[in-house]
């Protein structure tokens, strides 16, 4: 569950990234977030991750007001959220397996459990045979799928994705989107920021459209 209550964000440079934005995303919902670049998509995701703090308003995630989450609580909060980045953000000094295992290691899963979960996640994205490879040796689409496996390995309640299909061809993009849909059916709240309108308009999910930091469509609890 994600709720924004009249949230504004002004950066130190004076730019208003979000203006009085309110929205509500149910658990187990898959929602797309779209808008031209600079409309505030990334800022919105960053507020949910507590990578940035809002200037005004309230952000509530899984029932917690994020303004009250500080210090070690931020790390705990992030452990409940999986993130997929446009540029993968994989660590190239270790294998695919170790990349996917990183959040599990941090969360403190047991050794056997980690092995099981990593393989389950890699299996879901179809990369079970690549666990020993270095991510650098993989194609862009494969790297993105490693990123997804890492995001879902600890089975978070919320999955965020920032332009997950940004650099992929249409066939791969559709494949990735199908993965996200499968996670949402399995009970995960999924929020995907993308400007690939052609793709998402076919998928019949709620679309939030941002323009200059304000919501144009799709905000309410409809």
């Amino acid at each position, binding site marked *: 569950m994600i709720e924004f209550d009249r949230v504004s964000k002004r950066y*130190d440079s004076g730019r208003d990234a979000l203006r009085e934005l309110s929205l509500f995303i149910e658990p187990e919902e898959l929602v797309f977030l779209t808008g031209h670049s600079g409309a505030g998509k990334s800022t919105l995701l960053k507020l949910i*991750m*507590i*990578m*940035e*703090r809002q200037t005004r308003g309230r952000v509530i995630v899984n029932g917690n007001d994020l303004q009250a989450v500080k210090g*070690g609580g*931020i*790390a*705990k909060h*992030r*452990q409940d959220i999986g*993130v997929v980045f446009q540029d993968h*953000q994989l*660590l190239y*000094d270790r294998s695919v397996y170790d990349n996917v295992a*990183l*959040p599990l*290691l*941090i*969360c*403190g899963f*047991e050794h056997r459990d980690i092995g099981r979960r990593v393989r389950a996640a890699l299996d879901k994205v179809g990369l079970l045979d690549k666990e020993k490879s270095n991510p650098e040796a993989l194609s862009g689409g494969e790297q993105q799928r490693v990123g997804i496996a*890492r995001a879902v390995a600890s089975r978070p309640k919320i999955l965020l994705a920032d332009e997950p299909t940004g650099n992929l061809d249409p066939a791969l993009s559709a494949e990735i989107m199908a993965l996200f849909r499968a996670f949402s059916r399995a009970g995960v709240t999924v929020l995907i920021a993308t400007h690939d309108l052609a793709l998402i308009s076919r998928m019949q999910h709620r679309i939030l459209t941002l323009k200059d930091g304000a919501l144009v469509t799709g905000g309410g609890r409809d």
Partner: protein
Amino acid sequence: MTKAGQAASRGTSKVSFARRFANWRLHHRLARRDTLGRMGRHWVSTLLTVLVMGVVLSLPAALSMGVLTLDAALAEVDRGDSITVMTHDSVSLAQASKLSEELASLALVESVSLVSKEQALTELSQWLGLSPEVLASLGNPLPHSISLRLTSTQPEALQAVTDQLANNPFVADVLLDMEWLTRLQSIALFGERLLWAFVAIALLACLLIIGNTIRLAVENRRQEVLVTKLVGANNAYVIRPFLYTGFAYGAAGGLVALLIAYSVKYWLGGPIEALANSYQAPNFALRFPIPLALGLLLTAVVLGIVGAWVSARRQLKLIEPR
């Protein structure tokens, strides 16, 4: 529901203490492995950093060796009698002798030597080149005198003994050679302060070198730090490998400094021994005691950890949410 199932459903925030401890140890093991692997892969820059630290730390080590040696030398030189007591004219030799026995029993007094007025007259006549009879015919104006050697050459100790003597009815005057003692103390103090100044400068240099090295390391691994934080690592998890790096740099740098210090000691040992023998002072040698060596090593390690901690903390602050 099974016990394991219950534990799993409670999530990661309420795992048992034993589990958390095992996990903490695992994280430490991984951080150590990561640090060693990284240092091995970048062994040239690791070696250079360790050598720079070692050389910088060897400066205070060598200087403290010098000061300790100087202290020992001063102790050898410091053989003069510190206090001379003159008695009144009316005091007999027997009374003076009793007084000297009394003084010998004082806690601060190491030894006494009594010079009677007759002995003093003989010495004076020899010094003047006259026969003692001639001088004696003029009447002996000299008093009996007692020379004291104290166990301490601290001005405070001398003052205490002097005050005690001044109240004695037999004593006419107390002479003490404060001036050269004060000078000696000043030189020793100067050496000590000089040592501390160099130690402070060298330690500061080490702190800056390690801090800067770690800062560069964190900046090089900024992406990794960021990703690790985003998948839920707390600051302790992220900082841990850097602390181990600081520890390793400190320990290795400290060992290099010790190696340099002991090499210097060995190299200078021969000439110093020859010098000591020529002055018949067999106890005089270069000093670099084990506690000093251990202290140096410990300081280097602490500096490494502190430098790494400060630097890594500062870098982490930059990626905190605002």
